[in-house]
């Protein structure tokens, strides 16, 4: 294939907050992980495997946040995930009987049972319950590029001006990546696309070459970028490249009104039997005895009506193919237009939450499968790429300082800073300052104090997760988000007091280490002033970073 007129970089951002409650036999919020594994990650891996099997020339970028990677590697959560799959299979069995008098639903019950059985087989037998290992193997094919992210998905712009807090999120995130994937990351997913100068300099110190930013981070850059969001810019203070999210391709998928996922033939997310059926019937499958989603849903969106029609998988599949073709056609026209005005092929960066695919948008993995295959075989205008490959092919870029920005509502910090959640910042900033103080004042602690210091760092990182502020804003599951924030800050404060008094409660510390066991290798010295790495010049970067053009 000759040089295409433009490139499409699909970026899937996979993230869940760290939710692990060994103190309970079952815990409702742990289902977020199990649902994501069942409905998103396994179907996406299935799609990747299909491309490999059929030798499709695919290219995809994926961020896997450190909290998600840690949960996917956790033995307790893995075993509970298998238990969840077993439970789904049993529920589907029951549904096969219950729907035997309704052919349209009986067919769907059978579909779900087959999916759950297959998911369990693939998860347990094919992947050994190790999805990180599976992703690592796909990365080794050179088709998938996995990028790093901040330690606990902290929203970095609101950690300013405490550079040590921002630096710790980035450095711990990069270290977690190296441990999970065994290599140096080149790209970095800024949580919520939250960028604020000069965070790029902290990324550079960890060897990061590029990050994805919201459209206006580049549109509003100083000086004005010549090619807008369709070519990366180098941050002048670091040389790290900023790739902007393309608004057109985002809108086609994200828009709640115009986006593909809202098509009337697609499966309705909200009509789940956990809500629809008699409570006594579904109660054995509900956590904590409250109605919630089970994953079995029998209706299509149908329209803005309560009178929903049964889901038709064949019709939905056809629609996914149509939508993939439409998306590809629009990208072709987009790059044809852009190419006429640029001295290089434009890059269209299309990032999406990975959890959209399969969970919210049941047909999302199918759409992605159709799209990648169509791009490979049905046209020659665009080619798939990754930002790393694009940078390697077109290393000469404009230098411009991106603007502070995020991909949240209104484009800045409003989602994570509003009347519903602003009370957290006094506590988060105080804790971050205290952590820096502890690191400075305890350069050579005894072993017990060192454990307490590490746990304090862990609690701070967990409290900083952007998810808690987000949930407080959205107004659902608020109690859990508030509780998590208060508990992590409370535990941090208690550790701080004990460390300062030289009276660490070892039994309680052990309990904390068991519960909040994120990053067992964490070294609190990441908060020590000046602990940051020196900026890595290109010559010191791994050779792989300059051998990207495959």
């Amino acid at each position, binding site marked *: 294939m000759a040089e295409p007129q433009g490139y499409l970089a699909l970026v899937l951002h996979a993230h869940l907050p760290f939710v692990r409650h060994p103190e309970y036999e079952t815990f409702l919020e742990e289902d977020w992980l199990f649902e994501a594994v069942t409905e998103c990650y396994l179907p996406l891996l299935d799609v990747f495997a299909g491309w490999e099997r059929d030798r499709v020339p695919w290219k995809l970028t994926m961020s896997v946040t450190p909290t998600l990677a840690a949960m996917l590697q956790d033995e307790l959560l893995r075993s509970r995930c298998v238990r969840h799959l077993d439970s789904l299979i049993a529920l589907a069995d029951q549904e096969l009987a219950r729907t035997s008098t309704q052919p349209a639903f009986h067919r769907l019950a059978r579909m779900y049972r087959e999916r759950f059985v297959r998911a369990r087989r693939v998860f347990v037998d094919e992947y050994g319950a190790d999805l990180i290992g599976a992703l690592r193997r796909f990365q080794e094919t050179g088709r998938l590029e996995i990028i790093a992210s901040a330690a606990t998905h902290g929203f970095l712009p609101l950690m300013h001006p405490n550079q040590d807090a921002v630096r710790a999120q980035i450095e711990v995130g990069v270290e977690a990546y190296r441990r999970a994937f065994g290599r140096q990351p080149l790209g970095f997913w800024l949580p919520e696309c939250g960028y604020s100068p000069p965070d790029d300099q902290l990324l550079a110190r960890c060897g990061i070459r590029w990050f994805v930013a919201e459209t206006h981070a580049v549109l509003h850059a100083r000086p004005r970028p010549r090619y807008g969001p369709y070519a990366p810019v180098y941050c002048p203070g670091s040389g790290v490249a900023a790739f902007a999210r393309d608004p057109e391709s985002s809108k086609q998928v994200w828009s709640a009104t115009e986006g593909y996922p809202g098509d009337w033939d697609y499966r309705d997310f909200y009509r789940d039997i956990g809500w629809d059926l008699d409570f006594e019937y579904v109660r054995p499958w509900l956590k904590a005895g409250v109605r919630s989603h089970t994953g079995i849903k029998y209706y299509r969106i149908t329209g803005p009506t309560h009178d929903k029609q049964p889901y038709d998988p064949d019709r939905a599949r056809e629609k996914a193919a149509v939508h993939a073709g439409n998306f590809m056609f629009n990208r072709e026209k987009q790059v044809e237009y852009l190419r006429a005005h640029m001295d290089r092929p434009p890059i269209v960066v299309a990032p999406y939450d990975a959890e959209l695919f399969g969970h919210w948008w049941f047909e999302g993995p199918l759409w992605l499968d159709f799209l990648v295959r169509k791009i490979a075989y049905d046209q020659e205008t665009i080619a798939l790429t990754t930002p790393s490959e694009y940078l390697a092919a077109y290393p000469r870029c404009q230098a411009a300082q991106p603007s502070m920005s995020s991909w949240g509502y209104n484009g800045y910090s409003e989602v994570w800073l509003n009347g519903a959640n602003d009370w957290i910042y006094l506590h988060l900033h105080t804790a971050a300052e205290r952590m820096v103080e502890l690191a400075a004042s305890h350069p050579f602690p005894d072993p017990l104090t060192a454990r307490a210091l590490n746990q304090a760092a862990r609690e701070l990182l967990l409290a900083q997760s952007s998810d808690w502020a987000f949930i407080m804003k*959205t107004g659902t599951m608020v109690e859990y988000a508030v509780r998590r924030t208060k508990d992590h800050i409370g535990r941090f404060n208690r550790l701080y007091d004990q460390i300062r008094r030289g009276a660490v409660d070892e039994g309680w510390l052990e*309990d904390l280490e068991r519960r909040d066991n994120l990053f067992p290798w964490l070294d609190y010295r990441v908060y020590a002033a000046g602990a940051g790495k020196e900026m890595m010049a290109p010559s010191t970067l791994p050779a792989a970073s300059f051998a990207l053009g495959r």
Partner: protein
Amino acid sequence: MAGTVDGRYELPAGYGVERLGLLVRDPRCVFAFWEVTAGGWEAAVRRLPPGGEPPRLVLQVRDRPHESARATLGRGTPGVDECVREYTVAGADRWYVHLDGPGRAVAAVIGARSGSAFVPIARSPTVHTPPGTVCPQEAGEWLTIHAIYGRLAGGPAGATSPGLWARLALSRDDAVSSPSSWGQASWGEPAARHGRAPVDAALVIDTELIVYGRVSDGAARVSINGQPVTVRSDGSFGFRCALPEGTLVLPVEARFPGGQRRFATPVVTRETY
């Protein structure tokens, strides 16, 4: 709390230290949060001139457009004065401050005021709000990563050129920027938030049918509507199915170990008006 018990935590109202933090919410808004201790307040009040108006806690926000212009464009804007706003914030511990425009350098002070006298208690660092607009200056450098590192080390810069900016310039209103409404933490959204709520007072009726019975031998095999059902050791069995509108015929068959077969066929009609 002591020992291994880890209860539920409530956070303190403050940490006993005077402080004022300032965060950027968007190009036109900053957020101040503070802690003023009783001791800090009393010390500030003591420094006020005696006999004046009753002291009040005020937040001063200094908006420095010339400094921000220097930061973003490398040059100052002569003739633009520093703007100082002041808010009485007694009883509050945080405040949103709306600015006149984007791209500002902003700092804040919290303190005690009595008449024209003001005693600061805590100061914030200076923060910079984003420009919020397309930069009028297009001149730029085109570099490779190595050239950037060279320049950081003191080397020369690259070239510039005009472009197709007008076609690419998009306002924020055109952009889609709320994926969070779909994504990540929305795992936690219960269905009641989207569409489950009966916004138009909808009533949905479903019916199910429970068929149950007993066979004289727990080893017998029973099927209902062709579906095998579990027979308990005491011979009882049960079957639950959806009851759709219309007439439902449910043949039940029992097969005993000795080869005998027994049949029963309940017929149920559902009519919903």
